[in-house]
Structure formats: C-alpha cells, structure tokens
C-alpha cells in the first residue's frame, strides 16, 4: 500500500497542492479527477519523485520513501508522461528497453531483453519493434510509453492522462489492457484523468481534486455526482446509470452568480472516504 501523507507543493508563491492525503492500494485503479490546474499532474510527479514537494512524506508498506535514491524509487514506481518527445531517433524496442534502466548500468542483460520481448507481445506491439518511435501514430506512441512502464516491472504505475490523445478504439484498448494487468499482476495504478465516463467505468476508486485539495474520494458512483460536478467543475450535468456504468452528460456551465457555490466542499464531508448522492444510488 502506498500512502501519501500531508503533501504540500508550492510553485513560486502559488500553492498547487495543500495537504494531500491519499492511499493507493495494490490491485486497484485509482483515478484522480479535477479541472485544469488543480494539481493532478503535480500530484503524480510528486509521488513519482520527479519533483520535490515542500512538505509531506510517503511510504510503501511500512517503508518511508521520502529520502530514497531515485534509482531505487524507479524500481517501485513507474510513471507514464502525457507525451515523450524524442529529439533523436530510437526504435520501439529501444524505447521499451529503457524501462529496464533502473537495472541497467551499461549493458542490458539477456533477462532485460526477454522481458522487453514479452512486454511487446503482451501489448501487441511486436510488428512495431524495429520501427522508429517518431513514425508511430499518437495511440501507438502512447502504447509504447505504457509498454516501457510495464517493462519497468514496478508495484505502482502512475499515468498522466493515458487516453488524452487517443481515438475511441485506442482508449478502450489501453484501458482494458491496464485494468487487466492491474488485476493479474496485482499492480496499484493511478490515473490523472479528464474523461469522467472512462474514469467511472474503469476505476475502482476516484479522488476528486479541487484547487489543490482532496474534494472527495470514494467509489465512482459516490464521487461522480451532479452536485460534485457542479461544485468542482462548475458545470451542470445529468448522469445516467446504465447497468452500473455511469454516463455523464454535461449541460452548460453554472451561472457566474452562483459561483460561490463552486469549489466549496459540502459541510464536513470534504475528506470523508464515503460521500455519495442518494439520487444515483443503484
């Protein structure tokens, strides 16, 4: 179990994250939702050790990970960025092999190569193996980045908007592959997401962030409610429940006059683990 405790991140004078407490379980997909600029990406980067928070600690199991070396951290947590620019030509095989970096000093071992071959097969990327990464489509690139994280073979997998640049088919494919992997390999996955429908469909648990704070957390149907969408996103929406799958239909932005409503959590329920709206209770 990965626990984040009292995480605070400031950029210049702006508080991006204020006192975040979250918990990531193995074998579970946790989605982080919230409008632009609420600190979803920042939160992931803090956990992945890419940026250093001013305050806060995090632990895996009983082990405190705050002062751990970057290379050791990379053996436990992998991170898939939104995009990975490649200024110089590399093949797909080489790109995925980079996932083995925490274990490579100078030369990849036979074991590393075998793992890469298996991962390419697992994600059905075999035919691209010796193609140039830059020549792939957006969806294929995203898959390669995911393959790299899978090759890293970590207990926790963080992904920043894994579906943002993808068409429908690639979106579904990637989400299915990952949720499959989460269950079979007992991995803890965290997604920063924009798409409420995809999030509610594939997540076991959702955290809604608002202005750098945890607005609420819970099961999808507990978090994705008309009221929460209105308060956090400032949008009026309707929600349909079709055989346990939620469908969100955004209607229109909330009128500015009522904006004092937005972003303020309802009384005392802001940090409660269970918070739901009885209207959509199945």
């Amino acid at each position, binding site marked *: 179990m990965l626990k984040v405790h009292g995480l605070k991140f400031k950029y210049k004078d702006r508080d991006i994250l204020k006192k975040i407490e979250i918990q990531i379980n193995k074998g579970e997909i946790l989605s982080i939702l919230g409008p632009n600029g609420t600190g979803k990406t920042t939160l992931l980067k803090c956990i*992945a050790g890419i940026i250093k928070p001013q305050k806060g600690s995090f632990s895996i199991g009983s082990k405190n990970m705050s002062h751990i070396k970057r290379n050791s951290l*990379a053996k436990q947590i992998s991170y898939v960025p939104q995009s990975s620019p*490649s200024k110089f030509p*590399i093949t797909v*095989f080489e790109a995925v092999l980079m996932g083995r*970096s925490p274990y490579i000093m*100078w030369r990849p071992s036979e074991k590393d190569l075998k793992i890469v071959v298996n991962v390419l097969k697992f994600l059905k990327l*075999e035919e691209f193996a010796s193609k140039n990464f*830059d*020549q792939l489509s957006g969806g294929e690139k995203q898959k390669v980045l995911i393959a790299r994280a899978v090759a890293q073979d970590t207990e926790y997998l963080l992904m920043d908007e894994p579906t943002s640049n993808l068409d429908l088919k690639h979106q579904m494919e990637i989400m299915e592959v990952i949720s499959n992997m989460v269950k079979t390999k007992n991995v803890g996955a965290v997604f920063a997401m924009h798409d409420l429908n995809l999030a509610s469909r594939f997540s076991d648990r959702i955290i809604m962030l608002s202005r750098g704070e945890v607005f609420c957390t819970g099961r999808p149907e507990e978090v994705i409610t008309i009221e929460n969408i209105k308060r956090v996103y400032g949008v009026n929406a309707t929600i349909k429940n079709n055989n346990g799958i939620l469908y969100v239909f955004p209607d229109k932005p909330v009128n500015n006059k009522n904006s004092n409503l937005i972003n303020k959590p309802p009384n005392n329920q802001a940090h409660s683990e269970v918070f739901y709206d009885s209207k959509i209770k199945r």
Partner: protein
Amino acid sequence: MHTEKIYTEYKKFNAKKVFYILIFTIILGIIALGALLHGPSSIGFKNSFTALFKETGIASAIVWELRLPRIIMAILTGCGLSIAGTVFQAILKNPLASPYTLGIASGAGFGAVLAIIFGGSLYSEYLIAGSAFFFAMLSSLIILSIARLKDPSPETMILAGIAIMFLFSSLSSFFQYIGTMEQVQEIVFWFFGSLSKTGWKEISIVSVMIFVPIPFLIKSSWKLNLLATGDESAKALGVNTTKLRMQGMIFASLITSACICFTGVIGFVGLVSPHIGRMLVGSDHRFLIPTSALIGTILVLVADTFGRILWAPQVIPIGIVTSFIGVPFFFYLLIRRTRGYW
C-alpha cells in the same frame, strides 16, 4: 511477428553497429598510414616507410617529428570534439548544439587574444594555450553557475551560452581593434585553427585532458540515452538529470577546451560527426559515442591531409578545410530533415 524474431532483430541491429565501429577503425588506420607516408616533402613513399622503423636522418625527422605528431593531434582533436559534440547534443537535447554552442570557442579565442596582445615578455605558445584554456573553462563555469542559480534546463544553458559568446566575441574584437598589425594577424591565424605547431609535449598534455573524462562519459552512455527522451521520463526511470547534465557539461567543456587551446578553433567537426553517427548507428550512446569519435577523427585527418597536399608547400589551415567540407554537409542535413531533425 514471432517473438524470437524480435529478439534476433535487435541483436542484429546491435551487431550492425559494432560492424560500423570496426569498419571505421580500419578506415582510420588506412588513412592515418596514408597521411604518414605521403606528404608535400620530397621523401618518397618507400623512404617514409623505412623511416618509420629505421633512423634515416632527414626522412626520419620528417616522419617522426612533423607528420606523426600532426596525425596524432588530428586524431585527438577529431575524437575529442566529436565526443564533446555528442554529449552536448544529448544533455542540451538540441541537435544543433556543438562543442562551441556554450561560448567555449569564443572564451578560448578571447584568452588567446589576451595572451597575444598582453603577453609581452612572457609571450609563448604555452601562454596562449593556457590563457585560451582558462577562458574556455571560465565561460562554461559561468554558464554552470547561472544554471545553478536559476534552473538547470537546456534552454537556460543555451541562452546563457549565447550571451557569453557575444560577450567574449566583442571583447576579442575590441582588443583586436587596439592591437598592432602583427598581433591581429596572429589572432586571425589562431581563429583558423592549425595543427602545424604540434609536438609531442602538446600531445601528451592534450591526451591526458581528453582521456581522463572520456571513460566517465562512455560509462554514462545509458543515462544519456534516457535524457534524450525528456527529463521527466529520465527522472522517472531513475536518473538524476541535474547531476548528469552538470557533470556532462564539465567533462565535455574540459575536452573541448583541451582540444582547441593548442590548435585554435576547428569548426563543424563537433556538430556534424554526431549527426553522421546517428544516421548510421542510431541514438544509443553506447555505440554513438565511439562511432562519432571515429567519424570526427577521419574528418579532421582527411581535412588536414587535404590542407597539406592541395596547395603544397602552402598549408591551408585545418579550420578552413573542415568548414569547407562541413558547411555543404550541414546544408544537406537541413534540407534532408523531413521528419523532426531527421
């Protein structure tokens, strides 16, 4: 596709890279031998060859004291500048970076100008080299401190480097303006770059300064690969990017400064050979560093040999010849650049 095939394909891909390195080593050997046995002086091919192994008076002197040091220096500078160029392109994530991008050449040039104009009674070849080396390293240290103060991003470093370049260039121009005719002539000559004045002493100094940092850079090859995919990815894969970037910069600057302090500015080798290398073996620095080093040495050696033979007994300065070869090639690269930088 069969899994076995993916595996063998990768192996083959790497075997091809090793093959290139072998081929270039052989080509280098042949060219070096050719340059050693052939020259503008009238000692023939055969005499040069015997002079290599037997004391034969004038022929031995020409081979051992003129040609061989020159060839070795050409190899050292070609190798050093290309490795420095490859590393600069990787850590600055910029395909247009070269050993001179960060104002190192203008720093060195300014050092040489100072020594030539104010050297007075201390004036010597070593004073020029020392001063050039000092100011070359100074310019890179200034950039390092700016990067430490603000942020160690490639953009900050490149911008700071360009500012330094302008500063030292205008300082050089200013002192040339107040210098005498002879001094200005010598300065101009220094900026052309030349291998004419190399002896064994210079070679030993330069070799030490080049070969101490090179093993470290080769050892960091894998991490340099990661850096090219972006800082975030590299960090997430366990690389301390700030440390790697700073170290890479110090070592690459050291190599560059060592190469140019005795020879003057030899242009384009450091920019172009990493690109040719990447075309042939891709961006895996474990193979790219040796390949581009070999290409650089071949380029410098060929350019110098041409410079010696073309207009004998006049010697065309090496810096001029490499640019003659380098610039058209650079244009070719720019035009060929269909996807991204390739």
